[in-house]
């Protein structure tokens, strides 16, 4: 990969990539974070932490010398949290269908 294309990949991860992944992580976090004593931690903490998650992804994309590691961290976060959300929707769809049987 040429230095120019490496730079653009980095910009893509720091810019639109960080926004997209932060949104997906925020949604996915609601499904694995413990609800806590009040039953709201899993709903409130992702909302509170969203700007910091974005900043973490942004600075990681800017500062990590190994572009491969930037890509791996971002893609793992994206895939794990997308998977959790997809699983949640699959469960929701299958629950009413089973109830009809």
């Amino acid at each position: 990969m040429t230095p120019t294309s490496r730079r653009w990949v980095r910009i893509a991860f720091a810019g639109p990539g960080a926004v997209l992944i932060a949104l997906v992580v925020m949604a996915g976090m609601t499904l694995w974070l413990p609800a806590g004593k009040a039953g709201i931690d899993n709903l409130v903490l992702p909302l509170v932490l969203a700007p910091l998650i974005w900043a973490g992804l942004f600075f990681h994309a800017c500062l990590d010398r190994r572009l491969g590691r930037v890509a791996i961290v971002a893609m793992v976060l994206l895939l794990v949290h997308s998977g959790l959300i997809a699983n949640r929707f699959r469960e929701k769809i299958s629950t009413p269908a089973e109830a009809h049987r």
Partner: protein
Amino acid sequence: MIRLPRDETKAMVAVHGWSGILLGLLLYAVVLTGTAAVFAEEIGAWSAGHVATRSAFERPMADSLRRLGAKTPDRYSEAVDLFETGDHDLGVFFHRHEMDRGELISRGIFYVVGDDGRVIHRQAGTNEDVYGARNDNALSSFLVDTHVRLHVPNPWGLLLTGILGLSMLVAAVSGLLIHRHLFKDIFTLRRSGSAVLANRDAHSVAGTWSLPFAFVLAFTGSFFSFFGTVGMPVVAMAAFGGDVQALTEAVYGTPGKPDPRPAAMGNMDRINADAIARAGAVPTFVTIENFGRADAKVTTYHPPRDAAIAPMSLLYDGATAAFLQEKPLIGPRPSTGGTLAAIMSPLHFGNFAGLLSKAIWFGLGFAMCYVTYTGIRLWLVRREGGVRSFAWLERTNVVVGLGLPFALAASTAVFLVAMPLGSATWWTPAGFLIGTALAIMAGAIAPNAERLSAWLRGATGAMLLLLPLLRLLTGGPGWSTAFVAGQPIIVTLDIAFLFAGGWTLWQLRRNTDRPRPSIALQPAE
């Protein structure tokens, strides 16, 4: 002290510079109006000449509330908000929650009850109408609206200020990372060197001292901007299949078994008296859920206790007026998420320790404005003599940096004239636009940036000096009346405006008198 390798430092310098250049001027507008809005409540009392000091929650209201409940359609009894409006009048908003184009809104009937218990205003509308600008709070409301969304319609305005918050976060963190000598920089102010070095030092010192504050402001500000526009829908989508109302219920609602049987409202005066005694302060806001039902719940919200940051709230049974529990602001019982979310507001507004914390927040906000303004100037000086000319940006920086305080002072002057005539909601933004147009015109005709700066500073200083006089001439309470009524804030703000105006003009005169040193421009470190 953080030591980054050379390439990463270079990247961070670029990120720091571009985050300021691309959005710096808009960020400056948001931070400056936010700095002024720290004192929105006090500015509201000063500008409207409010002299009543007895809170609406200390006066009897139970009968008025029952009477209003009886004549309000049942469909708006889902919730009632009680808050102070105008000169300690009581605002009562009977409403229900509904979704409007994907946004959760409140719709109902709003009453204002005067200090004699009579209804002085009735209005059907949504939360946007009820909590929007009125004639007497048009100035403070204008300041807050500019800060919150730059007068861009929602959700775009909130998204814009959220993005500005993130860019400030980036500027703060990258600013920290590029400091080679963080502790040395805090105390280094070289006055004998070149003007560029002196400016760079001043930028560094102000930036370094206000760094933690910038981080907190940027973090909490972007949280508020994205909370309702992006955060709630995304979390609701994942956790409640997109039902934002269900998410709001889960986070803010008071759990309990529904009991829809009709029941008369308990004695609200007893609740208010008990809440004031328990919290040691009058409520800032009161909500009633399920008004007129057996399961009605009253929540009173109070400022933080001494040495606390999070505001407190108390829960009462609405039908019996019995105290139930001290309730966290968010969630039914104390939790990490609830506490973190609850401290966001005091950390952003600096209102957790009265006027002292507000004054500190104001000072640090002012430092942030200075950092943004001088940061852009430094970026421009570094590029002076380059292939591309940035003279237009230098002029724009002066028009925004110094024209904005002028336009705000102009809108204040116009408000003071228009409020007694009842047309302040229209004239306050109009006054701001007139001030802005004058600043832009000055920018277009000024021979150079230095002259433009002198014009705008002179005009702002004169306008600030004029404000207390204008307030008195348009029927505002005099200093003795304000003192007797227990409103020293009116006098304090008069003095603050006189001092700020005098200082601005004195600085201008001092700069004009002083022989101009020959400036040898050097690239800043």
